[in-house]
């Protein structure tokens, strides 16, 4: 009696630590403690699950410990090695593994049920099927998101003609089979159902473009949470249920925030409207010429200004330019220039991507402005430096109803006195949309690799 009290108490501690840990994430100062807190809670719960008394259990501890050692080592090494710029890939792949874990569990339980090894109520069968479905989508969807982020596959290579219709048919077939399985037992069909869910996960992420990755990653995160919660219902385990729901809530909130930041509905993102209608929108006159600026002039302009706002984008991550960026920042600050950063919610490939990069480069977080703060500050800013951002500073979102991004809240960099855009070439951004900002009267282009240009700027400023 006393022993099972301790086990139950451990689970309660675990559930509390998850909630409290997430609560501590509400401030950067307490966030690290929160994560450690949640981690300890998880550890307590795992130990309790290992030692809790089970009737007639063979335990098979060697299998458990072996698996834990392998997984633990892989997890630790990859967590240590990953670069901050690759965080979206890392989060995707971990997320996929969580989904896969839930799928394996649900399949194993169903298999035992069909083989007559254990009993399952109709409700439990339904929940197991739901776990297979949602966990399967999270697994293969995350794997494809990972491959896309790593640049291993291109959108066009995995998208079929009429892809959205194929997706719709696939979804209907899968769900119909799910309902059939709910009412009839069949191991073979359950395997087919699992396979279809896995294919659907892949196929559903296939048409979604790079700029929409923050939405997809958030959504997949919430799916993994749901699959964990559903698995918790199969095992009647409250801790799995609480943990899964918290993750589901987190993923859902982030999905909504990301969609709002682009002023698009989730449905619109999922059918891949962004890339699809990219050809639309005002085409720019061929004779428009973007002005360019040389390093020397740019350095002087920055050095003798009062306030500078840097707008980072995915290009900053690709060029690994966050540290040089901070170097320029320091040099300017030393001359009394007020340097701030304007972070658009969907800059980069996942929620908060830019914040992590800048934190890695030791930029204090009070220097980071969100969309509203930045738009207020931009009006009184001397120079804006756009580093690898494109769609989030596109004026078409404000004034061109034909543009696919019309209505998306953007950083109004044109309110500042001058703009310098660091860019490799005049090619349009990932979404393939032309950016009239490059031809704006206040704008000058500084061509070249972001990291290269910034380090040249830094050495030029040093000579001033």
């Amino acid at each position, binding site marked *: 009696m006393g022993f099972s009290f301790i086990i139950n108490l451990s689970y309660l501690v675990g559930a509390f630590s998850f909630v409290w840990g997430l609560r501590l994430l509400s401030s950067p100062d307490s966030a690290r403690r929160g*994560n450690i807190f949640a981690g300890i809670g998880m550890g307590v719960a795992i130990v309790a699950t290992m030692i809790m008394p089970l009737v007639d259990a063979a335990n098979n501890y060697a299998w458990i410990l072996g698996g834990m050692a392998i997984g633990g080592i892989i997890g630790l090494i990859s967590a240590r090695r990953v670069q901050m710029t690759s965080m979206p890939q890392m989060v995707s792949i971990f997320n996929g593994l969580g989904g896969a874990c839930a799928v394996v569990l649900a399949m194993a339980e169903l298999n035992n049920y069909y083989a007559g090894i254990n009993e399952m109520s109709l409700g439990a069968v339904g929940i197991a099927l739901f776990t297979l479905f949602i966990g399967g989508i999270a697994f293969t969807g995350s794997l494809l998101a990972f491959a896309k982020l790593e640049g291993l596959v291109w959108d066009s290579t995995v998208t079929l003609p009429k892809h959205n219709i194929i997706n719709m048919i696939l979804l209907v077939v899968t769900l119909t089979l799910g309902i059939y399985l709910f009412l009839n037992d069949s191991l073979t069909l359950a395997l087919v159902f699992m396979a279809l869910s896995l294919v659907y996960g892949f196929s559903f992420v296939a048409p979604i473009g790079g700029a929409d990755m923050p939405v997809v990653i958030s959504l997949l995160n919430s799916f993994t949470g749901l699959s964990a919660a559903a698995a918790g219902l199969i*095992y009647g385990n409250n801790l799995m249920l609480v943990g899964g729901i918290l993750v589901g809530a987190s993923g859902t909130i982030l999905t909504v925030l990301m969609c709002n930041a682009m002023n698009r509905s989730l449905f619109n993102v999922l059918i891949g409207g962004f890339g699809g209608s990219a050809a639309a929108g005002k085409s720019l006159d061929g004779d428009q010429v973007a002005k360019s600026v040389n390093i020397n002039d740019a350095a002087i302009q920055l050095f003798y200004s009062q306030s500078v706002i840097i707008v980072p984008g995915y290009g900053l991550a690709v060029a690994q330019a966050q540290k040089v960026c901070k170097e320029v920042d320091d040099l300017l600050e030393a001359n009394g220039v007020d340097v701030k950063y304007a972070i658009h919610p969907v800059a980069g490939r996942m929620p908060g991507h830019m914040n992590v990069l800048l934190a890695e480069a030791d930029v204090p977080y009070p220097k980071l402005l969100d969309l509203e703060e930045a738009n207020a500050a931009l009006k009184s800013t001397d120079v804006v430096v756009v580093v690898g951002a494109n769609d989030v500073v596109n004026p078409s979102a404000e004034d061109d109803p034909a543009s696919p991004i019309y209505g998306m809240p953007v950083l109004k960099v044109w309110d500042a006195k001058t703009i310098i855009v660091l860019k490799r070439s005049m090619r349009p951004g990932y979404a393939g949309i032309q950016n009239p900002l490059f031809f704006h009267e206040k704008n000058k282009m500084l061509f070249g690799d972001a990291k290269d240009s910034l380090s040249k700027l830094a050495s030029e400023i040093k000579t001033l």
Partner: protein
Amino acid sequence: MEQFFEFFNENLILIYLLIFTIVLGFEVISKVPTVLHTPLMSGANAISGVVIIGAILLIRQATPDDYLTLSLGVIAIILGMINVVGGFAVTDRMLEMFKKKK
């Protein structure tokens, strides 16, 4: 319908837990600032590794010669453990960088 009423009545506490956790989750997480959205995702990821508990229960209850279940269980444990350990470790690495400077 009768079955549904029965299910509802029998699992009342579980249903309470479900609803309150959803509300609590939305309340707590909506307070996380934009700056910390990436660590929030990776931290949440680590928490979703809680499915490992199911994997442990699966293996413990399997008969020692049921190699199919044991293998599936071990795969699930490896996947869950990567998620848990990797997730918490990488979140810690990120949050360490968010220390207040100056």
